Protein backbone atom coordinates (compact mmCIF):
# COMPACT_ATOMS: atom_id res chain seq x y z
CA UNK A 1 0.00 0.00 0.00
CA UNK A 2 1.39 3.41 -0.95
CA UNK A 3 -0.64 5.55 1.47
CA UNK A 4 -2.42 4.22 4.55
CA UNK A 5 -4.56 6.43 6.74
CA UNK A 6 -6.00 5.03 9.97
CA UNK A 7 -8.39 6.70 12.42
CA UNK A 8 -7.11 10.12 11.49
CA UNK A 9 -8.37 13.16 13.38
CA UNK A 10 -7.29 16.78 13.11
CA UNK A 11 -8.71 19.40 15.41
CA UNK A 12 -7.75 23.06 15.45
CA UNK A 13 -8.14 25.35 18.43
CA UNK A 14 -9.62 28.72 17.62
CA UNK A 15 -10.58 31.34 20.20
CA UNK A 16 -10.79 28.76 22.96
CA UNK A 17 -13.03 26.50 20.87
CA UNK A 18 -12.16 23.15 19.35
CA UNK A 19 -12.80 22.98 15.62
CA UNK A 20 -12.71 19.39 14.34
CA UNK A 21 -11.56 19.49 10.70
CA UNK A 22 -10.98 15.79 10.07
CA UNK A 23 -12.93 13.07 11.84
CA UNK A 24 -11.96 9.41 11.80
CA UNK A 25 -10.56 9.24 8.28
CA UNK A 26 -9.62 5.75 7.09
CA UNK A 27 -8.22 5.41 3.61
CA UNK A 28 -5.91 3.08 1.71
CA UNK A 29 -4.37 4.22 -1.57
CA UNK A 30 -2.57 1.66 -3.70
CA UNK A 31 0.56 2.25 -5.76
CA UNK A 32 -0.33 3.83 -9.11
CA UNK A 33 -3.85 4.73 -8.01
CA UNK A 34 -5.41 8.11 -8.82
CA UNK A 35 -7.66 9.40 -6.05
CA UNK A 36 -9.79 12.53 -6.36
CA UNK A 37 -10.95 14.05 -3.08
CA UNK A 38 -14.00 16.15 -3.78
CA UNK A 39 -16.12 18.35 -1.59
CA UNK A 40 -17.02 21.93 -0.83
CA UNK A 41 -14.66 24.41 0.79
CA UNK A 42 -14.08 23.51 4.45
CA UNK A 43 -14.71 19.81 3.99
CA UNK A 44 -11.12 19.00 5.04
CA UNK A 45 -9.53 18.13 1.68
CA UNK A 46 -6.52 20.45 1.99
CA UNK A 47 -5.93 19.48 5.63
CA UNK A 48 -5.91 15.83 4.60
CA UNK A 49 -3.36 16.56 1.84
CA UNK A 50 -1.16 18.47 4.32
CA UNK A 51 -1.20 15.49 6.67
CA UNK A 52 -0.35 13.07 3.87
CA UNK A 53 2.56 15.33 2.90
CA UNK A 54 3.74 15.55 6.51
CA UNK A 55 3.38 19.34 6.47
CA UNK A 56 1.13 19.10 9.53
CA UNK A 57 0.76 16.65 12.39
CA UNK A 58 -2.58 14.99 13.20
CA UNK A 59 -4.40 15.26 16.51
CA UNK A 60 -4.46 11.47 16.54
CA UNK A 61 -4.25 8.58 14.11
CA UNK A 62 -1.76 7.31 11.56
CA UNK A 63 -0.56 8.37 8.13
CA UNK A 64 1.82 5.84 6.61
CA UNK A 65 3.75 6.41 3.39
CA UNK A 66 5.00 3.06 2.12
CA UNK A 67 4.78 1.84 5.72
CA UNK A 68 6.66 4.82 7.16
CA UNK A 69 4.60 6.82 9.72
CA UNK A 70 5.09 10.32 8.33
CA UNK A 71 2.79 11.71 11.03
CA UNK A 72 5.34 10.73 13.69
CA UNK A 73 8.54 11.63 11.89
CA UNK A 74 10.60 14.55 13.21
CA UNK A 75 10.74 17.51 10.78
CA UNK A 76 14.13 16.56 9.38
CA UNK A 77 13.00 13.06 8.36
CA UNK A 78 9.58 14.25 7.18
CA UNK A 79 11.32 16.78 4.89
CA UNK A 80 13.66 14.07 3.59
CA UNK A 81 10.78 11.72 2.87
CA UNK A 82 8.83 14.52 1.18
CA UNK A 83 11.82 15.47 -0.96
CA UNK A 84 12.28 11.89 -2.17
CA UNK A 85 8.75 10.54 -2.42
CA UNK A 86 6.24 13.36 -2.69
CA UNK A 87 5.69 16.08 -5.28
CA UNK A 88 3.19 18.83 -4.54
CA UNK A 89 1.14 21.06 -6.82
CA UNK A 90 -0.64 24.01 -5.24
CA UNK A 91 -3.65 26.12 -6.17
CA UNK A 92 -1.58 29.33 -6.24
CA UNK A 93 1.42 27.58 -7.89
CA UNK A 94 3.84 28.89 -5.18
CA UNK A 95 6.59 29.72 -7.68
CA UNK A 96 9.48 32.11 -7.14
CA UNK A 97 8.22 34.88 -9.43
CA UNK A 98 11.66 36.47 -9.93
CA UNK A 99 13.31 33.19 -10.97
CA UNK A 100 13.11 31.63 -14.41
CA UNK A 101 11.12 28.48 -15.13
CA UNK A 102 14.37 26.50 -15.27
CA UNK A 103 15.54 27.89 -11.91
CA UNK A 104 12.18 27.22 -10.25
CA UNK A 105 12.30 23.59 -11.31
CA UNK A 106 15.94 23.30 -10.22
CA UNK A 107 15.26 24.46 -6.63
CA UNK A 108 14.03 21.10 -5.18
CA UNK A 109 17.22 19.37 -6.37
CA UNK A 110 19.67 21.85 -4.83
CA UNK A 111 19.92 19.99 -1.47
CA UNK A 112 20.28 16.64 -3.24
CA UNK A 113 24.03 17.00 -3.66
CA UNK A 114 23.84 16.05 -7.36
CA UNK A 115 26.20 17.65 -9.86
CA UNK A 116 24.77 20.55 -11.88
CA UNK A 117 24.95 18.51 -15.09
CA UNK A 118 22.85 15.72 -13.56
CA UNK A 119 20.42 18.25 -12.12
CA UNK A 120 19.98 19.91 -15.51
CA UNK A 121 19.28 16.54 -17.16
CA UNK A 122 16.51 15.86 -14.63
CA UNK A 123 15.16 19.41 -14.96
CA UNK A 124 14.99 19.11 -18.75
CA UNK A 125 13.14 15.80 -18.47
CA UNK A 126 10.59 17.31 -16.06
CA UNK A 127 10.15 20.38 -18.29
CA UNK A 128 9.51 18.10 -21.27
CA UNK A 129 6.98 16.03 -19.34
CA UNK A 130 5.09 19.16 -18.26
CA UNK A 131 5.38 20.61 -21.78
CA UNK A 132 6.97 23.89 -20.65
CA UNK A 133 10.57 23.50 -21.87
CA UNK A 134 10.10 26.18 -24.51
CA UNK A 135 9.67 28.75 -21.71
CA UNK A 136 12.61 27.61 -19.57
CA UNK A 137 14.41 30.97 -19.63
CA UNK A 138 11.26 33.03 -18.97
CA UNK A 139 10.74 34.59 -15.54
CA UNK A 140 7.90 32.86 -13.67
CA UNK A 141 6.23 36.21 -13.01
CA UNK A 142 5.78 36.73 -16.78
CA UNK A 143 3.98 33.41 -17.40
CA UNK A 144 0.24 32.87 -17.94
CA UNK A 145 -1.75 30.86 -15.36
CA UNK A 146 -1.56 27.67 -17.41
CA UNK A 147 2.19 28.04 -17.93
CA UNK A 148 2.70 28.66 -14.22
CA UNK A 149 0.77 25.51 -13.42
CA UNK A 150 2.87 23.49 -15.86
CA UNK A 151 6.02 24.91 -14.25
CA UNK A 152 4.65 23.84 -10.87
CA UNK A 153 4.00 20.37 -12.29
CA UNK A 154 7.57 20.18 -13.60
CA UNK A 155 8.85 21.23 -10.17
CA UNK A 156 6.74 18.54 -8.51
CA UNK A 157 8.07 15.90 -10.89
CA UNK A 158 11.73 16.82 -11.02
CA UNK A 159 12.79 14.60 -8.10
CA UNK A 160 10.86 11.70 -9.65
CA UNK A 161 8.52 11.19 -6.67
CA UNK A 162 6.17 8.21 -6.44
CA UNK A 163 3.35 10.32 -5.05
CA UNK A 164 1.90 13.52 -6.53
CA UNK A 165 -0.40 15.59 -4.34
CA UNK A 166 -2.46 18.32 -6.01
CA UNK A 167 -4.38 20.91 -4.03
CA UNK A 168 -7.13 22.58 -6.15
CA UNK A 169 -4.82 22.46 -9.19
CA UNK A 170 -7.31 23.94 -11.65
CA UNK A 171 -8.86 26.61 -9.42
CA UNK A 172 -6.91 29.37 -11.16
CA UNK A 173 -7.04 27.93 -14.68
CA UNK A 174 -9.48 28.42 -17.54
CA UNK A 175 -11.27 25.40 -19.03
CA UNK A 176 -8.69 24.74 -21.78
CA UNK A 177 -5.78 24.81 -19.35
CA UNK A 178 -7.74 22.67 -16.89
CA UNK A 179 -8.26 20.04 -19.60
CA UNK A 180 -4.56 20.26 -20.44
CA UNK A 181 -3.77 19.68 -16.77
CA UNK A 182 -5.99 16.60 -16.75
CA UNK A 183 -4.10 15.29 -19.80
CA UNK A 184 -0.83 15.65 -17.88
CA UNK A 185 -2.36 13.86 -14.88
CA UNK A 186 -3.41 11.06 -17.24
CA UNK A 187 0.15 10.77 -18.50
CA UNK A 188 1.53 10.70 -14.95
CA UNK A 189 -1.00 8.03 -14.07
CA UNK A 190 0.17 5.96 -17.03
CA UNK A 191 3.73 6.30 -15.67
CA UNK A 192 2.58 4.57 -12.48
CA UNK A 193 2.56 7.60 -10.20
CA UNK A 194 0.20 7.58 -7.24
CA UNK A 195 -1.88 10.74 -7.51
CA UNK A 196 -4.12 12.41 -4.94
CA UNK A 197 -6.09 15.45 -6.10
CA UNK A 198 -8.15 17.66 -3.81
CA UNK A 199 -10.63 19.60 -5.91
CA UNK A 200 -14.17 20.81 -6.25
CA UNK A 201 -13.83 21.20 -10.03
CA UNK A 202 -16.58 19.09 -11.75
CA UNK A 203 -14.15 18.37 -14.62
CA UNK A 204 -12.61 15.70 -12.38
CA UNK A 205 -15.94 13.91 -11.92
CA UNK A 206 -15.68 12.01 -15.18
CA UNK A 207 -12.04 11.35 -15.88
CA UNK A 208 -11.43 9.09 -18.87
CA UNK A 209 -8.92 6.98 -16.95
CA UNK A 210 -9.11 4.70 -13.94
CA UNK A 211 -9.64 6.84 -10.83
CA UNK A 212 -11.34 6.77 -7.46
CA UNK A 213 -13.54 9.64 -6.39
CA UNK A 214 -13.83 10.17 -2.66
CA UNK A 215 -16.39 12.78 -1.61
CA UNK A 216 -15.76 14.57 1.68
CA UNK A 217 -18.16 16.51 3.86
CA UNK A 218 -17.56 18.15 7.23
CA UNK A 219 -14.25 16.38 7.73
CA UNK A 220 -15.56 12.91 6.93
CA UNK A 221 -15.43 10.62 3.93
CA UNK A 222 -19.04 10.40 2.79
CA UNK A 223 -18.77 7.40 0.54
CA UNK A 224 -16.25 5.75 -1.70
CA UNK A 225 -16.82 4.58 -5.22
CA UNK A 226 -14.83 3.87 -8.32
CA UNK A 227 -15.90 5.48 -11.58
CA UNK A 228 -15.50 2.21 -13.45
Amino acid at each position, binding site marked *: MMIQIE*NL*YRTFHHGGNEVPVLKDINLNIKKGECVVLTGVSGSGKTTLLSLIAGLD*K*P*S*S*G*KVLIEGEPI*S*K*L*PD*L*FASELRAKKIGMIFQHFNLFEHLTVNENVTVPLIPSGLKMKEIQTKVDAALNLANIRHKKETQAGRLSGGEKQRTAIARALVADPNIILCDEPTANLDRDNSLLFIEIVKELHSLGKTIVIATHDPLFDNLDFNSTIIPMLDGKIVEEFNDE
Partner: protein
Amino acid sequence: MMNEVFLSNQVIVFLLSESTLFSLLFIAFVVSFKILLKWDFESFTPYQFTLERQAYLVSTIIYFVFIMKFILIVYFIFTIDVLSLLVPGAMCAAGVITANDYGSYLLILKLTILFFLTLWFYVHYYDMRTKNHLWFKQKSLLFSSIFLMILLELILDFSYFSHIDTQIPVNCCSTLFGQLEGANPLPFGLSINMLLILFYLLYALMILTIKSSQTLLYIIANILFVYIAYYAVVYFFGTYVYQLPTHKCPFCMMQAEYFYIGYVLWGSLFLATYMGISNALTTLLMGKNHTRSQINVAYLLSLFVLLCTAYVAVYYIKNGVLL
Protein backbone atom coordinates in the same frame (compact mmCIF):
# COMPACT_ATOMS: atom_id res chain seq x y z
CA MET B 1 20.33 47.21 51.80
CA MET B 2 20.43 48.11 48.11
CA ASN B 3 23.76 49.48 47.04
CA GLU B 4 24.78 51.58 44.06
CA VAL B 5 26.34 48.57 42.31
CA PHE B 6 23.10 46.63 42.45
CA LEU B 7 21.31 49.56 40.85
CA SER B 8 23.79 50.32 38.07
CA ASN B 9 22.46 50.10 34.51
CA GLN B 10 24.58 47.13 33.43
CA VAL B 11 23.66 45.11 36.51
CA ILE B 12 19.95 45.85 36.08
CA VAL B 13 20.10 44.80 32.41
CA PHE B 14 22.06 41.68 33.30
CA LEU B 15 19.81 40.58 36.15
CA LEU B 16 16.67 41.36 34.18
CA SER B 17 17.95 39.28 31.26
CA GLU B 18 18.90 36.40 33.54
CA SER B 19 15.50 36.52 35.26
CA THR B 20 13.60 36.61 31.97
CA LEU B 21 15.54 33.66 30.61
CA PHE B 22 14.99 31.81 33.86
CA SER B 23 11.22 32.42 33.62
CA LEU B 24 11.23 30.87 30.15
CA LEU B 25 13.27 27.94 31.41
CA PHE B 26 10.93 27.48 34.35
CA ILE B 27 7.97 27.09 31.98
CA ALA B 28 10.03 24.70 29.85
CA PHE B 29 11.02 22.75 32.98
CA VAL B 30 7.43 22.31 34.20
CA VAL B 31 6.21 21.23 30.75
CA SER B 32 9.18 18.95 30.11
CA PHE B 33 8.64 17.28 33.49
CA LYS B 34 5.05 16.51 32.51
CA ILE B 35 6.22 15.27 29.09
CA LEU B 36 8.87 13.07 30.65
CA LEU B 37 6.30 11.30 32.84
CA LYS B 38 3.82 10.51 30.05
CA TRP B 39 6.09 10.20 26.99
CA ASP B 40 5.37 7.17 24.78
CA PHE B 41 6.55 7.82 21.25
CA GLU B 42 5.06 4.58 19.90
CA SER B 43 1.57 5.77 20.80
CA PHE B 44 -0.72 7.51 18.27
CA THR B 45 -3.12 8.94 20.86
CA PRO B 46 -4.21 12.60 20.95
CA TYR B 47 -2.33 13.03 24.25
CA GLN B 48 0.95 11.79 22.78
CA PHE B 49 0.57 14.08 19.74
CA THR B 50 -0.05 16.99 22.13
CA LEU B 51 3.08 16.03 24.08
CA GLU B 52 5.09 15.92 20.84
CA ARG B 53 3.93 19.42 19.92
CA GLN B 54 4.80 20.65 23.40
CA ALA B 55 8.18 18.89 23.28
CA TYR B 56 8.98 20.73 20.05
CA LEU B 57 8.07 24.07 21.64
CA VAL B 58 10.03 23.27 24.81
CA SER B 59 13.11 22.30 22.78
CA THR B 60 12.88 25.58 20.87
CA ILE B 61 12.63 27.58 24.11
CA ILE B 62 15.58 25.73 25.65
CA TYR B 63 17.62 26.16 22.48
CA PHE B 64 16.98 29.91 22.47
CA VAL B 65 17.72 30.34 26.19
CA PHE B 66 20.92 28.32 26.00
CA ILE B 67 22.22 30.37 23.07
CA MET B 68 21.44 33.52 25.07
CA LYS B 69 23.37 32.16 28.06
CA PHE B 70 26.54 32.10 25.95
CA ILE B 71 25.98 35.74 25.04
CA LEU B 72 25.20 36.63 28.65
CA ILE B 73 28.50 35.27 30.01
CA VAL B 74 30.25 37.82 27.80
CA TYR B 75 27.94 40.54 29.10
CA PHE B 76 28.55 39.36 32.68
CA ILE B 77 32.32 39.84 32.27
CA PHE B 78 31.72 43.20 30.61
CA THR B 79 29.43 44.23 33.50
CA ILE B 80 31.84 43.37 36.28
CA ASP B 81 34.60 45.06 34.31
CA VAL B 82 32.53 48.26 34.18
CA LEU B 83 31.87 47.95 37.93
CA SER B 84 35.61 48.20 38.60
CA LEU B 85 35.14 51.97 38.29
CA LEU B 86 32.91 51.90 41.39
CA VAL B 87 34.75 49.43 43.57
CA PRO B 88 37.81 50.91 45.29
CA GLY B 89 41.03 49.06 44.53
CA ALA B 90 39.60 47.23 41.51
CA MET B 91 41.35 47.88 38.20
CA CYS B 92 39.35 45.35 36.23
CA ALA B 93 36.85 42.49 36.63
CA ALA B 94 39.44 40.56 38.66
CA GLY B 95 39.01 42.90 41.62
CA VAL B 96 35.22 43.00 41.37
CA ILE B 97 34.84 39.21 41.18
CA THR B 98 36.56 38.89 44.57
CA ALA B 99 34.63 41.72 46.17
CA ASN B 100 32.64 39.14 48.15
CA ASP B 101 32.51 35.40 48.79
CA TYR B 102 29.99 34.70 46.02
CA GLY B 103 31.96 35.98 43.00
CA SER B 104 34.41 33.13 42.45
CA TYR B 105 31.75 30.44 42.95
CA LEU B 106 29.45 32.29 40.58
CA LEU B 107 32.10 32.46 37.86
CA ILE B 108 32.97 28.77 38.24
CA LEU B 109 29.28 27.84 38.20
CA LYS B 110 28.69 29.90 35.06
CA LEU B 111 31.58 28.18 33.27
CA THR B 112 30.34 24.76 34.43
CA ILE B 113 26.81 25.50 33.22
CA LEU B 114 28.17 26.49 29.80
CA PHE B 115 29.86 23.11 29.54
CA PHE B 116 26.60 21.28 30.27
CA LEU B 117 24.75 23.52 27.82
CA THR B 118 27.22 22.49 25.12
CA LEU B 119 26.67 18.85 26.04
CA TRP B 120 22.89 19.39 25.81
CA PHE B 121 23.34 20.85 22.29
CA TYR B 122 25.13 17.67 21.22
CA VAL B 123 22.52 15.33 22.74
CA HIS B 124 19.74 17.47 21.22
CA TYR B 125 21.47 17.34 17.82
CA TYR B 126 21.59 13.54 17.91
CA ASP B 127 18.08 13.24 19.32
CA MET B 128 16.66 15.30 16.45
CA ARG B 129 18.40 12.96 14.04
CA THR B 130 16.67 9.82 15.23
CA LYS B 131 13.24 8.91 13.87
CA ASN B 132 11.87 7.96 17.28
CA HIS B 133 13.59 10.58 19.49
CA LEU B 134 15.85 7.91 20.93
CA TRP B 135 17.66 10.30 23.28
CA PHE B 136 14.65 12.30 24.41
CA LYS B 137 14.64 11.07 28.03
CA GLN B 138 18.40 11.52 28.44
CA LYS B 139 18.11 15.01 26.95
CA SER B 140 15.27 15.90 29.31
CA LEU B 141 17.14 14.61 32.35
CA LEU B 142 20.20 16.60 31.32
CA PHE B 143 18.01 19.68 30.93
CA SER B 144 16.51 19.13 34.41
CA SER B 145 20.01 19.04 35.93
CA ILE B 146 20.99 22.19 34.04
CA PHE B 147 17.80 23.90 35.17
CA LEU B 148 18.69 23.28 38.82
CA MET B 149 22.18 24.66 38.21
CA ILE B 150 20.70 27.74 36.55
CA LEU B 151 18.37 28.21 39.52
CA LEU B 152 21.40 28.18 41.82
CA GLU B 153 23.18 30.53 39.43
CA LEU B 154 20.30 33.02 39.58
CA ILE B 155 20.36 32.98 43.38
CA LEU B 156 24.13 33.52 43.30
CA ASP B 157 23.73 36.31 40.71
CA PHE B 158 21.46 38.27 43.05
CA SER B 159 23.53 37.45 46.12
CA TYR B 160 26.73 38.50 44.41
CA PHE B 161 25.57 41.82 43.01
CA SER B 162 23.67 42.78 46.15
CA HIS B 163 26.68 42.16 48.37
CA ILE B 164 29.33 44.23 46.61
CA ASP B 165 30.36 46.90 49.07
CA THR B 166 31.70 50.03 47.40
CA GLN B 167 33.22 51.26 50.65
CA ILE B 168 35.60 48.36 51.18
CA PRO B 169 38.72 48.25 48.98
CA VAL B 170 39.44 45.02 47.13
CA ASN B 171 42.64 43.35 46.02
CA CYS B 172 43.30 43.19 42.30
CA CYS B 173 45.46 41.58 39.63
CA SER B 174 49.04 41.14 40.77
CA THR B 175 48.17 40.84 44.46
CA LEU B 176 45.55 38.25 43.68
CA PHE B 177 47.16 36.13 41.07
CA GLY B 178 50.07 34.69 42.96
CA GLN B 179 52.56 37.50 42.95
CA LEU B 180 53.13 37.13 46.65
CA GLU B 181 56.81 37.23 47.33
CA GLY B 182 58.53 33.87 47.16
CA ALA B 183 55.43 31.87 46.25
CA ASN B 184 55.32 29.86 43.01
CA PRO B 185 51.81 30.34 41.66
CA LEU B 186 52.20 27.74 38.89
CA PRO B 187 50.55 24.31 39.22
CA PHE B 188 52.53 21.18 40.22
CA GLY B 189 55.49 23.45 41.15
CA LEU B 190 56.30 23.88 37.45
CA SER B 191 58.71 26.48 36.14
CA ILE B 192 57.55 28.80 33.34
CA ASN B 193 59.65 26.87 30.81
CA MET B 194 58.15 23.54 31.84
CA LEU B 195 54.69 25.07 31.81
CA LEU B 196 55.19 26.20 28.20
CA ILE B 197 56.58 22.83 27.11
CA LEU B 198 53.54 21.16 28.68
CA PHE B 199 51.26 23.71 26.99
CA TYR B 200 52.55 22.95 23.49
CA LEU B 201 52.83 19.19 24.12
CA LEU B 202 49.24 18.97 25.30
CA TYR B 203 48.11 20.98 22.29
CA ALA B 204 49.94 18.57 20.00
CA LEU B 205 48.50 15.58 21.87
CA MET B 206 44.97 16.92 21.49
CA ILE B 207 45.36 17.58 17.78
CA LEU B 208 46.79 14.08 17.33
CA THR B 209 44.08 12.34 19.38
CA ILE B 210 41.15 14.45 18.20
CA LYS B 211 40.23 12.00 15.45
CA SER B 212 41.62 8.86 17.01
CA SER B 213 39.71 6.27 19.01
CA GLN B 214 41.60 7.28 22.17
CA THR B 215 38.55 9.14 23.49
CA LEU B 216 39.40 8.88 27.17
CA LEU B 217 42.96 10.07 26.56
CA TYR B 218 41.56 12.98 24.56
CA ILE B 219 39.21 13.98 27.41
CA ILE B 220 42.04 13.88 29.96
CA ALA B 221 44.33 15.87 27.65
CA ASN B 222 41.53 18.39 27.14
CA ILE B 223 40.94 18.95 30.86
CA LEU B 224 44.67 19.17 31.52
CA PHE B 225 45.15 21.56 28.64
CA VAL B 226 42.52 24.05 29.79
CA TYR B 227 44.09 24.00 33.25
CA ILE B 228 47.64 24.51 31.98
CA ALA B 229 46.50 27.02 29.35
CA TYR B 230 44.91 29.19 32.02
CA TYR B 231 48.21 29.51 33.86
CA ALA B 232 50.19 29.87 30.64
CA VAL B 233 48.02 32.80 29.56
CA VAL B 234 47.98 34.54 32.94
CA TYR B 235 51.66 34.05 33.80
CA PHE B 236 53.34 34.11 30.42
CA PHE B 237 51.37 35.01 27.30
CA GLY B 238 49.33 37.65 29.13
CA THR B 239 52.44 39.60 30.01
CA TYR B 240 53.07 39.99 26.26
CA VAL B 241 49.50 41.16 25.72
CA TYR B 242 50.08 43.85 28.37
CA GLN B 243 53.76 44.25 27.41
CA LEU B 244 54.54 44.36 31.10
CA PRO B 245 56.24 41.48 32.94
CA THR B 246 54.50 42.24 36.23
CA HIS B 247 50.97 42.47 34.85
CA LYS B 248 49.45 39.03 35.38
CA CYS B 249 45.69 39.17 35.05
CA PRO B 250 43.13 37.08 33.14
CA PHE B 251 40.60 39.91 32.91
CA CYS B 252 42.41 43.14 31.89
CA MET B 253 42.97 41.73 28.38
CA MET B 254 39.21 41.94 27.90
CA GLN B 255 39.35 45.72 28.06
CA ALA B 256 39.25 48.11 25.10
CA GLU B 257 42.91 49.14 25.43
CA TYR B 258 43.89 45.53 24.63
CA PHE B 259 41.38 45.37 21.77
CA TYR B 260 39.16 42.96 23.75
CA ILE B 261 41.56 40.17 22.78
CA GLY B 262 40.76 38.37 26.03
CA TYR B 263 37.28 37.56 24.77
CA VAL B 264 38.79 35.87 21.69
CA LEU B 265 41.46 34.05 23.70
CA TRP B 266 39.26 32.76 26.50
CA GLY B 267 36.31 32.30 24.15
CA SER B 268 38.24 30.08 21.75
CA LEU B 269 39.85 28.10 24.60
CA PHE B 270 36.64 27.41 26.51
CA LEU B 271 34.50 26.81 23.42
CA ALA B 272 37.06 24.33 22.07
CA THR B 273 37.22 22.59 25.44
CA TYR B 274 33.44 22.41 25.83
CA MET B 275 32.92 21.17 22.29
CA GLY B 276 35.83 18.74 22.43
CA ILE B 277 34.78 17.12 25.72
CA SER B 278 31.07 17.08 24.79
CA ASN B 279 31.84 15.40 21.48
CA ALA B 280 34.11 12.89 23.20
CA LEU B 281 31.48 12.15 25.88
CA THR B 282 28.76 11.55 23.29
CA THR B 283 31.20 9.25 21.49
CA LEU B 284 31.78 7.31 24.71
CA LEU B 285 28.20 7.23 25.99
CA MET B 286 26.08 7.33 22.84
CA GLY B 287 28.41 5.91 20.22
CA LYS B 288 28.09 9.09 18.15
CA ASN B 289 30.86 11.13 16.60
CA HIS B 290 30.61 14.48 14.89
CA THR B 291 33.52 14.89 12.49
CA ARG B 292 32.79 18.49 11.55
CA SER B 293 32.69 19.42 15.21
CA GLN B 294 36.12 17.81 15.71
CA ILE B 295 37.50 19.91 12.89
CA ASN B 296 36.00 23.06 14.42
CA VAL B 297 37.57 22.18 17.77
CA ALA B 298 40.95 21.81 16.06
CA TYR B 299 40.50 25.23 14.40
CA LEU B 300 39.51 26.91 17.68
CA LEU B 301 42.42 25.36 19.60
CA SER B 302 44.85 26.31 16.86
CA LEU B 303 43.48 29.87 16.84
CA PHE B 304 44.02 30.07 20.60
CA VAL B 305 47.57 28.70 20.47
CA LEU B 306 48.48 30.80 17.43
CA LEU B 307 47.20 33.99 19.04
CA CYS B 308 49.11 33.31 22.24
CA THR B 309 52.29 32.54 20.31
CA ALA B 310 51.83 35.51 17.99
CA TYR B 311 51.91 38.00 20.90
CA VAL B 312 55.30 36.63 22.00
CA ALA B 313 56.65 36.49 18.44
CA VAL B 314 55.55 40.03 17.58
CA TYR B 315 57.06 41.38 20.81
CA TYR B 316 60.34 39.61 20.08
CA ILE B 317 60.48 40.83 16.48
CA LYS B 318 59.79 44.40 17.60
CA ASN B 319 62.16 44.52 20.58
CA GLY B 320 64.70 41.77 19.99
CA VAL B 321 64.24 40.46 23.54
CA LEU B 322 61.73 38.51 25.56
CA LEU B 323 60.12 39.79 28.74
